[in-house]
């Protein structure tokens, strides 16, 4: 991909941290919390409506960019499953010493199995470290959500998975 | 994917290879030539002079291309190139269906 449109298709980390849907470092460290990577003013308020805890705020003007209230967010992942843009994740930095737990939406079949080792991929679709499937939740009325254990160093890089056969 | 070096090997500046109307197989080159020869400035004229847009698809896909070419050749904004007039049928429809209107199938009454 060319440098010039990277921002338009895969946000840089710096830009992400500026989003109102992206909790700050302290908030990220205090427990599982949703990160909303929805940078543009799109007329949509599905995440706000989906949150049972009122942790996401858009307001009457549904064009506004969603804002997360980390104090109210418990990291349940409901918004991850319902966001039409597949743009919400839950980050739990305190999963293990080395790994963080990442909740991602996943609309491909077959779904991976719990315990399976798959390849993590970045926002740009590039391959990252191998990651472990911790849980698979086939939602009734939404997008299946998957929890994966990710090296802490890559928690802000990895946003998807690739199921590929690797003899390792 | 591979890079290929053939920048000037394809002499298609005038669109001699580029088909615009697939139904009637009219190229961009032929359309440009007609526009220049006869000083055409409307879609309807291009149709008459080249048959572009006269095919089964009724100009569905090529009308926009003809407009674009007209706009380039006549140096006018595309908004100034008026659409061709519309006449029935707006979709291809069997002769029998059109005839049905007077056969009484359409619940048609005599005027």
């Amino acid at each position: 991909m060319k440098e010039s449109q990277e921002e338009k298709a895969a946000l840089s980390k710096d830009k992400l941290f500026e989003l109102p849907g992206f909790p700050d470092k302290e908030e990220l460290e205090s427990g599982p919390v949703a990160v909303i990577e929805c940078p543009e003013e799109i007329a949509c308020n599905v995440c706000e409506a989906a949150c049972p805890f009122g942790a996401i705020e858009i307001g009457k003007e549904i064009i506004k960019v969603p804002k997360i209230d980390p104090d109210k967010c418990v990291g349940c992942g409901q918004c991850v499953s319902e966001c039409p843009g597949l743009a919400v994740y839950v980050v739990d930095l305190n999963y293990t010493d080395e790994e963080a737990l990442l909740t991602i939406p996943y609309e491909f079949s077959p779904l991976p199995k719990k315990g399976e080792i798959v390849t993590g991929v970045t926002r740009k679709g590039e391959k990252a470290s191998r990651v472990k499937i911790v849980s698979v939740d086939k939602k009734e009325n939404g997008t299946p959500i998957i929890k994966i254990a990710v090296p802490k160093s890559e928690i802000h890089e990895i946003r998807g998975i690739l199921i590929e056969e690797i003899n390792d | 994917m591979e890079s290929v070096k053939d920048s000037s090997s394809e002499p298609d500046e005038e669109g001699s290879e580029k088909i615009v109307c697939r139904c009637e197989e009219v190229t961009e080159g032929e359309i440009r030539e007609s526009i220049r020869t006869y000083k055409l400035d409307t879609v309807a004229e291009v149709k008459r002079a080249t048959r572009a847009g006269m095919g089964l698809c009724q100009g569905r896909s090529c009308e926009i291309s003809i407009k674009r070419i007209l706009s380039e050749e006549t140096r006018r904004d595309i908004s100034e190139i008026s659409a061709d007039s519309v006449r029935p049928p707006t979709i291809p429809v069997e002769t029998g269906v059109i005839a049905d209107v007077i056969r009484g199938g359409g619940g048609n009454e005599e005027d």
Partner: protein
Amino acid sequence: MKKTEVLIVGGGIIGSSIAYYLSKHGVEVTVVEKGKLLGGASGANQGGIPVSLFEPPLLDLVRESRKLYDGLSQELGEDLGFDETGLLLIVLDKDQESLLNQFGKRLEQRGLGAESLSSNELQAESLLADNVKAAVKTSADASVDPFKVGFGLISQAKANGATFLKDTEVKDVIMSGRKVTQVKTTRETLQLNYLVNAAGARSKSIGDMVGLDIPVKPRRGQILVTEPTPRAKYRYLMDFDYIATALGNGDKEEKSRRMKLGVASSLIQEPSSNWTIGASRDFAGFNKKTTRETLGYLADRATKFLPDFENCNIIRSYAGLRPYCHVDGKPILGRIEELDNFFIATGHAGEGITLAPITGKLLAREIVSGRKAKLLDSFRYSRFESE
């Protein structure tokens, strides 16, 4: 002010043909067209060149025109889609069978080839409906691609130095005695030595400007176009009813709705292999819309002859406004006596394509030589004055 030797009003097939033949004589000519070139009836017809349908003296003119078509593709350096297919005249009605045979005999007497198809031949022709009772195959008739003819004439005329001004409407003329000296258009005023009124269905309004009452009004003809089909053996078919409706000499005054709308089949397979389905005749002013009823009758009638049309797609319809002389239905051609430099070429009704070459040739000759062409004598404007 721009000057031109001959100014032709009307950029249809007639005006373009006159321009071509004049330019061939080296005459400097300018064509002014209110709309787009070939945008009127010249672009909304079937391209038929029927010969067999006419009576003298029109027949003489038609035959001469048909002869000119023989060499026209070569002359214009353009494939005009000239198809010397002949005409298949067909009847559905048993009553018309003997009339058709008489008609065929008359053609032979005139030296126009015609032969009746035997019932075996009829049955062998799979395209034709079983209920076609009889058919006569003629040989003089042909068809062309009318756009190719039109644009061919225009491009050669241009190559010979003619000027075509479209989107240019004549608003008024300036006279000096019996002479038209200038024409005011929506764009500019032009000075001229000769004026030709080839404005088709609108030629009356040009006549009005010089005080001539030209008895021409628009007659609407509607046409359907099918998708392309395999090349047929008989590519020009005509409903014998056409002769009644087209020539107005049908004594069988059928008062059906179809006949009132002037619908009788004229079916031509174009060089592109699409069929055009005509013909209709009605008077609706300058309204060029196609109408539900006429299209319905055109479609229905066509399927009676060619049943395969039933499931063949129609992709287009259009209507043309034919310049129709409401006194006698005949063309009005040649120099006008009342004025010094005014020529007329209109009233071709449905036969503009048929008569374009001869009209162009003879009008050009009259303008250039100052002598009257004998072939035009029956079609002069003066015929209305004696009444």
